[in-house]
């Protein structure tokens, strides 16, 4: 079936008619992927592996590669490139590469192994991923992802990753995130941890072998672009405060996603956009920054002290039923006292075909709608709106296992979900076996990221971007269990085969610390740090971060409107001014200074937040994780406008006071036809 | 103290685990010895002649293959080697532990460790002192505090334990021995790698209890019986 596909275009380039963001941006030239493959879709990657030039093994050790980040994408790349014999320098801000936030992924990893013989195939995984991304991803990249997915499982098993197994000793699979085949491999609820430790161990092996040098507790603060190529980074040693210059032939960013722009998210406390944003300011385009995935099953906020949100695996929706009281006055009652007829199982009511298993964005938006209607449950939390007004809102809906417990028995529920129930009980102090859980959506993943071509190279030559940090594979929404797949695909199999095409021209002319580009990058970093330390205002970086988060969540969260986004941009601009005049960072640069670290990250989040709002404002359609109030059907469902927006929005930085320039990359499908989704 | 470099050419024989194995094996030798010793002591219940015959027989054991007292000297040699190994390894590990944490906690709670496990080192030292005293008392010096003849083991024993303070010394020593065996038995089995499941670990802990009670109890029976007059001259 597939081999004939991929030879002729099935859709026309989009023609944007609306222009909501006028005044906030400058239209730019279209952008095309200079290395986009052609031909039958199932042969493109194989052909490319062959076509890309090789690097002589004797030359590899003369080539220096910097990799920023040690999650699945960065750790796997460091290990693989180290094994190949390159000279790798790996950076992470944590105290060990093993702490990267990939470790927190719970559910599993997809792979088109078809071990269940249930009709799965590379093409089906490709199809599901493109469809799940609402036709806003690049088909060649996605097909490649599906293709290498099977190799990932082989590789991980060989490393000793303890995937779940059946009694026969073979690997177990489960179905995940609403797909109808079982292709998700898992290690109880800790798949990300086990995969990351596999990559970490492979990388540590290379550290011992001398091919990888690891720089822990180092934060990249600037990329060095010399003579048009990325040639190194400036990093701060977070223990001594020393500003270090590291030079190389190529730089890889694997710094993860920027969900923490919302302050509250399921990301780690330290997850940040700084590495990517600094590269953006140096010329790397940022693509589709507004595409954010909001996960429906998180533990609700308990108060103003909340520092992060905790996700519970989506698998809970397989057996739990989601509801809120029909009447607002029932909301403070004990849920067990609310009779069946007074409960509104709203997902089952609105989406009878999919019920509680509707995609993440729908489940999330409906939960917000219920709470906005005043039918939320749990303790009323004081919400300080972005404009400073306070209101009391209950932010939570019930996820009820009473039916499941009576149907399957408590024991079976315990076996399946025990660790999640325990986690819930520990955080909330409530027993979910006795009383329904409360859940609420939280920011979980960003599909947007630095623009890359088919080789994962950004618009800065020699700067490659992998994993969540790039934009390429998930379109406007990501399927469950696909983030781990993409991180490892990029790190183990894609980047090592594409970076050699670039490195075949190396080693590049040596530059040293006196090169003007190096001096400039270094000076910029030093001045910025001095600025943070000398503002001497009244507010902590955290307090600005929280305020930014409130603005983003309210106006650039689950539902975005033209009016709201305009308001948000103004508020963010004001916030930026206040930040640079009223920030207080105590202490010095010359020691561990966590306030200083945060200040730098928040400064970049503020700028990113503004761009996200502009991107969201421009995209007057609803697709994937991006829901524009102005673009919905009569029943309030998301309405896509392929004719106007089937493109990647790649944004170019033009300076502090300049307007961002929008470059559009048309999305032309050759192997799959665009369809409007329906879950009714 | 942390080293930023990787060790080259690590050897199993030079590891801390090898030291622990030395402790475990030498400890098992002692366990075998105290069980046999206790059995001999219980001969006291069989009366003066049986007890002394047993003591004398130990010297003739293995004749004519071994010379007179040959078996005893072989045993003594094994015990001395085991003692040197046990104490030597203990001192080495103790010193390592002391260097591993030179700044102490202001507050530290013990959550699951038994008193016996935490007193292995000081308890072991106490046992070492006791062994010196015990050898002076019964083997080398043959000191009889009540002044009777010392070439009659049974009488020496009975006259010694007729003194309440002497009995107290021995009972305290047996308490220390019980403690040491309670954790030591489990620890030896664990160190030799025989407790790879929760159930085998539970059994090893039970073995520690049983040995502690049997050995400490068995040894204590004799002095107690002398004190209350069940055993007399």
């Amino acid at each position, binding site marked *: 079936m597939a081999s004939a596909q991929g030879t002729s275009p099935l859709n026309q380039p989009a023609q944007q008619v609306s222009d909501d963001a006028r005044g906030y941006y400058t239209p730019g030239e279209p952008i095309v992927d200079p290395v986009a493959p052609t031909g039958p879709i199932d042969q493109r990657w194989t052909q490319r592996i062959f076509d890309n030039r090789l690097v002589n093994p004797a030359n590899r050790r003369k080539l220096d590669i910097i990799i920023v980040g040690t999650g699945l994408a960065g750790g796997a790349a460091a*290990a693989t490139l180290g094994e190949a014999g390159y000279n790798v320098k790996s950076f992470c801000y*944590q*105290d060990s590469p093993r702490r990267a*936030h990939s*470790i*927190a992924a719970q559910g599993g990893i997809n792979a088109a192994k078809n071990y269940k013989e249930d009709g799965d195939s590379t093409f089906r995984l490709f199809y599901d991923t493109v469809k799940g991304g609402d036709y806003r991803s690049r088909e060649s990249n996605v097909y490649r992802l599906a293709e290498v997915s099977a*190799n990932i499982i082989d*590789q991980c098993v*060989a*490393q*000793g990753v*303890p995937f779940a*197994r059946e009694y026969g*000793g073979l690997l177990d699979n489960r179905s995940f995130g609403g797909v109808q085949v079982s292709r998700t491999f898992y290690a*109880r609820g800790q798949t990300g*941890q*086990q995969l990351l*430790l596999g990559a970490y*161990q492979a990388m540590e092996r290379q*550290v011992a072998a001398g091919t990888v040098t690891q720089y822990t507790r180092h934060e990249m603060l600037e990329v060095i672009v010399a003579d048009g190529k990325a040639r190194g980074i400036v990093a701060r040693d977070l223990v001594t405060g020393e500003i270090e210059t590291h030079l190389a032939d190529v730089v890889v960013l694997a710094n993860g996603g920027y969900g923490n722009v919302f302050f509250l998210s399921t990301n780690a*406390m*330290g997850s940040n956009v700084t590495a990517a944003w600094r590269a953006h300011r140096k010329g790397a385009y940022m693509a589709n920054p507004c595409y954010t995935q909001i996960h429906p099953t998180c533990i609700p906020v308990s*108060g103003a*002290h909340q*520092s*992060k949100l905790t996700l519970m695996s989506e698998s809970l929706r397989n057996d739990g039923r989601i509801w809120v009281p029909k009447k607002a006055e029932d909301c403070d009652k004990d849920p067990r006292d609310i009779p069946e007829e007074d409960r509104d199982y709203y997902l089952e009511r609105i989406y009878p075909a999919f019920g509680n298993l509707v995609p993440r964005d729908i489940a999330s938006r409906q939960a917000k709608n219920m709470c906005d209607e005043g039918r939320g449950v749990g303790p009323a939390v004081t919400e300080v709106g972005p404009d400073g007004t306070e209101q009391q809102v209950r932010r939570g809906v019930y996820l009820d296992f009473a039916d499941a417990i009576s149907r399957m028995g408590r024991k079976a529920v315990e076996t399946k979900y025990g660790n999640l129930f325990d986690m819930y009980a*520990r955080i909330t102090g409530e027993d979910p076996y006795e009383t329904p859980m409360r859940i609420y959506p939280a920011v979980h993943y960003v599909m947007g990221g630095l623009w890359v071509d088919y080789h994962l190279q950004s618009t800065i030559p020699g700067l490659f971007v992998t994993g969540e940090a790039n934009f390429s594979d998930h379109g406007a929404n990501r399927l469950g269990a696909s983030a781990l797949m993409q991180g490892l695909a990029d790190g183990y*199999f894609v980047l090592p085969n594409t970076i050699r095409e670039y490195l075949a021209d190396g080693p590049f002319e040596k530059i040293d610390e006196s090169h003007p580009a190096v001096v400039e990058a270094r000076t910029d970093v030093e001045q910025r740090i001095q600025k943070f330390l000398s503002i001497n205002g009244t507010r*902590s970086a955290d*307090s600005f971060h929280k305020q930014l988060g409130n603005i983003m969540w309210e106006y650039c969260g689950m539902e975005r409107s033209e009016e709201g986004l305009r308001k948000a941009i103004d508020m963010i601009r004001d916030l930026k001014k206040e930040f640079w005049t009223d920030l207080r960072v*105590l202490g010095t640069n010359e020691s*561990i200074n966590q306030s200083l670290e945060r200040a730098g990250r928040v400064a970049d989040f503020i700028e990113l937040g503004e761009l996200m709002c502009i991107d969201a404002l421009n995209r007057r359609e609803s697709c994937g994780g991006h829901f524009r109030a102005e673009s919905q059907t009569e029943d309030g469902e998301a309405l896509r406008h392929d004719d106007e927006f089937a493109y990647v929005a790649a944004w170019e930085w033009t300076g502090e006071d300049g307007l961002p320039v929008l470059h559009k990359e048309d999305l032309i499908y050759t192997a799959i036809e665009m369809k409007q989704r329906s879950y009714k | 103290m942390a*080293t930023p470099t990787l*060790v080259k050419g*690590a050897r*199993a024989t*030079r*590891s*801390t685990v090898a030291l622990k*194995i030395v402790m475990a094996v030498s400890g098992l030798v002692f366990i075998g010895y105290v069980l046999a010793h206790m059995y001999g002591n219980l001969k006291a219940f069989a009366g003066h002649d049986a007890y002394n015959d047993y003591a004398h027989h130990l010297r003739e054991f293995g004749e004519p293959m071994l010379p007179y007292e040959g078996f005893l000297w072989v045993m003594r040699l094994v015990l001395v080697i085991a003692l040197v190994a046990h104490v030597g390894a203990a001192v080495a590990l103790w010193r390592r*532990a002391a260097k*591993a944490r030179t*700044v102490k*906690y*202001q*507050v*530290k709670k013990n*959550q*699951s*460790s038994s008193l016996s*496990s935490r007193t292995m080192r000081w308890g072991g030292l106490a046992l070492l002192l006791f062994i010196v005293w015990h050898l002076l008392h019964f083997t080398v010096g043959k000191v009889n505090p009540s002044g009777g003849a010392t070439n009659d083991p049974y009488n020496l024993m009975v006259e010694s334990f007729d003194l309440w303070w002497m009995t107290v010394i021995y009972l305290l020593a047996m308490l220390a021995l019980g403690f040491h065996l309670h*954790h030591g038995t489990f620890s030896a089995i*664990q*160190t030799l*790698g*025989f*407790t790879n499941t*929760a159930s*085998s*670990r539970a059994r090893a802990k039970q073995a520690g209890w049983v040995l502690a009670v049997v050995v400490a109890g068995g040894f204590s029976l004799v002095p107690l019986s002398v004190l209350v007059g069940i055993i007399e001259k």
Partner: protein
Amino acid sequence: MRLTLNIWRQRDAASAGSMQKYELDGVSEDMSFLEMLDVLNEQLNEQGEEPVAFDSDCREGICGNCGLMINGQAHGPEVTTTCQLHMRSFKDGDDITIEPWRSDVFPVLRDLIVDRSAFDRIIQAGGYISANTGSAPDAHAAPVEKKKADRAFDVATCIACGACVAACPNGSASLFMGAKITHLGELPQGQPERYDRVVNMVGQHDAEGFGGCTNIGECTAACPKEIPLDVISQLNKDLRTALKQGR
């Protein structure tokens, strides 16, 4: 609730440190322990005093970055990580003593932050299976008995937080090491390097200056992932086998 906090403050590795007392009011029982410290830090920042430095990242109990000695217990009174400890485990008026992990192998870098890089080096010494990318056979080529696969998973959940070292009276890292040795040793893929692995990892452990294990069990009681003591037995057994093989 209102709390009195006694916290170890230390400028950097070279400076001497001391305990400092802080009063904190308005603590809610729904806060996590680290959120309570966030509130303290916000208050200190307002007062012009440098905030207390402590490590934390994922705050969902899996990255292993956080770890404090709370009233003499590693990660505090519950069997979980510090980030998952909530203030409902304390009561109004409590005095809480907070110290960094104490081990000479984990030097204090600032306040409550210690350097655990020795753990990375123990893994570098042998805590892996050598399988270059692309060299792997099909994942179903080697079935694994479910019991062994389950045990491998159970012990692979170690998060390398260092609580075992912190709680051990000997400052030993045997539980951390045993977990990795058992995980890889249970799997067919881990067999070829099994006995070299244990020798090299233990060799690195000893060179770092960790103490020897005395099988006391404080480590497993403090372990937020409840890694059982049998991993140390497994480590010992593997090392004994390595001894027999003359490695």
